[in-house]
């Protein structure tokens, strides 16, 4: 190799080496986000009978996925296996989060079902027609699916896992605390936290008012960018110290939000119905972040409100 070519090679190498510091590669979130999941766990809180005389088992479920997660029972009967070898099929399986994502380490015992216009609070339960009270050593098996992490509108089932929950029925845990079963450091944020959303827009709850059974939150977005942007948060649900998620679920991109002009702010309210006596509220807030229709969940401490 001639001296000129060698010098040229060194020069090109130096330029490329210098140029490397001008290249910013995105972090590999996928590798760091691997979390061991134990799925969802369930415990029986009460066993009784329905008005029709069927066996009714009330449950509490706990998110042990290590991430935000929504779960729902499969469209199949639950199986009751008695300690004496008997079996029964339970056709009413009202087990799930009602579509909402629950924070890791949280526990719940009810959600808002029915329809949007006529919501109904559904206790988490299983009903077994014509079944006798379960003898000692009985177990309830419930097939269910759960999703974890961020909610991607374009691929809502990307993280779906199908598995079975086994609930021992020997011990009834009626005096559980809700909604936190296993605290996670830094998970629950103050209500007025500034949350960075889509396009670096800053979202903040600026007002919270409770009148009767209505809890109204006022939201403000501040857009530091140069383009108008809107940040969807849906109608955020709330879970109380009674373990029930209040707020009918619908995809968070459906609720309309105002456009935040560049360099300006926008405000809008959201509402959720909660019985007046329920306290210890935590808001389960989905915030459109990173890219359009990708929602990252946040837990906001609303206190006694």
């Amino acid at each position: 190799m001639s001296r000129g070519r060698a010098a040229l090679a060194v020069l090109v190498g130096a330029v490329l080496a210098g140029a490397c510091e001008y290249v910013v590669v995105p972090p590999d979130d996928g590798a760091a986000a691997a979390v061991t999941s134990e799925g969802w766990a369930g415990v029986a809180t009460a066993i009784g009978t329905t008005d029709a005389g069927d066996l009714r088992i009330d449950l509490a479920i706990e998110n042990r996925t290590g991430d935000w997660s929504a779960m729902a029972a499969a469209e199949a009967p639950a199986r009751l296996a008695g300690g004496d070898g008997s079996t029964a099929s339970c056709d009413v399986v009202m087990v799930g989060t009602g579509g909402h994502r629950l924070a890791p380490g949280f526990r719940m015992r009810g959600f808002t079902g029915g329809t949007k216009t006529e919501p109904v609070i559904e206790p988490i339960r299983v009903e077994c027609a014509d079944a006798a009270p379960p003898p000692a050593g009985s177990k309830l098996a419930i097939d269910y699916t759960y999703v974890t992490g961020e909610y991607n509108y374009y691929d809502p089932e990307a993280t779906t896992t199908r598995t079975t929950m086994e609930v021992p029925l020997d011990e009834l845990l009626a005096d559980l605390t809700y909604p936190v079963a296993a605290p996670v450091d830094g998970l629950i944020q103050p209500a007025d936290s500034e949350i960075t959303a889509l396009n670096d827009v800053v979202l903040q709850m600026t007002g919270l008012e409770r009148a009767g059974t209505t809890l109204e939150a006022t939201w403000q977005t501040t857009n530091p960018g140069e383009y108008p942007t809107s940040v969807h948060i849906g109608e955020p649900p709330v879970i109380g110290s009674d373990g029930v998620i209040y707020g009918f679920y619908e995809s968070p991109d459906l609720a309309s939000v105002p456009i935040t002009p560049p360099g300006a702010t926008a405000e809008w309210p959201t509402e959720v119905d909660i019985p007046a006596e329920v306290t210890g509220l935590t808001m389960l807030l989905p915030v459109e972040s990173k890219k359009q229709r990708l929602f990252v969940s946040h837990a906001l401490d609303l206190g006694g409100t």
Partner: protein
Amino acid sequence: MITSLRARAVRYRRFAPLAATITLFCLAYAYGAVVYEGMRDPQVFLNLFRASPFLLISAIGMTFVILSGGIDLSVGGVVALTTVASAALLRSGGMDPWLVMALMIVMGAVFGVTMGFFITYLRVQPFIATLAGMWVARGLSFWISDDAIPIDSRLYTVLGQTKILIPGLADPVTKIGPFISIPVVTELVVLLVAIFVAQYTRFGRTVYAIGGNEQSARLMGLPVNRTKMLVYTINGLCSALAGIALSVDVSSGHGLYATGLELTAIGAVVIGGTLLTGGVGYVVGTLFGVLIIGVIQTLIQFNGQLSSWWTPIVVGALTLAFIGIQSALAARKARPTAGRRMPQPARLGDPTLQEDVP
């Protein structure tokens, strides 16, 4: 003096549409910079390149097609098909992303060869052949998937989200400052290659010759058929590359992506000064055509009050204006051959002829 100026004007008249496009872009951007402080940010200018690399790449392919006197309406369909096929292969097949990209480029080229075959050898009108191609490509997209398919590939994330900071404007320590992305580098490389091919190769000159007059090109012994096949192949390849750029940008594939992209690309080419009749135009003009569309969108966004539909309205009006100007220039060019008077012998002492005497 006047003769010299006139001769120079005649010599550079072919640059008039290109000059008009560049002037229009500069004026529009200057207006924005004066009215909106934010538009003085270098990042806003760089965003014109970042916003739609897929448009520039597909418009470059379209430029070759239009220069050759043809048209290609299958561009948007091929772009959408590329996004969906890439996403499907990455998801269900778990295929290596480099292999997927290579397959997509081959697919685009094969699509272009097919279009070229029908147009060149079966004498199908380019409009009809590529219209059918568009339907086929769109249909295939929805056959693969009705819904959007997300792309979860580290390579696509790196290609789409890596920032290349601009030396002198950005701080390499804090990694903050104006930047471009890898698709921008890709589109600029494609642009430079296209300029070289169009201006400095035999193939490029043949494309111009075919667009100017295909019959004359045949009589001159130029490889017309082979060149037309190559033109549509290049366009198919550019469409696939544009599809890859789009899927990298949005990290997903969908049959509804790039709807109407072919018409926007044609608009950009025409605004860039390329004659729809073929034979006249420059690839660099297409760059400014795309930039003008970008600056219109930017102005509308900075305004904040106007509907985004003003973009197609303005682009449509500009396209009409440029086609009008082109037609007027073409008519003016054609006039001497149609109605030229027979040359008369010069009369001595005629003052009106003095300036024309060299």
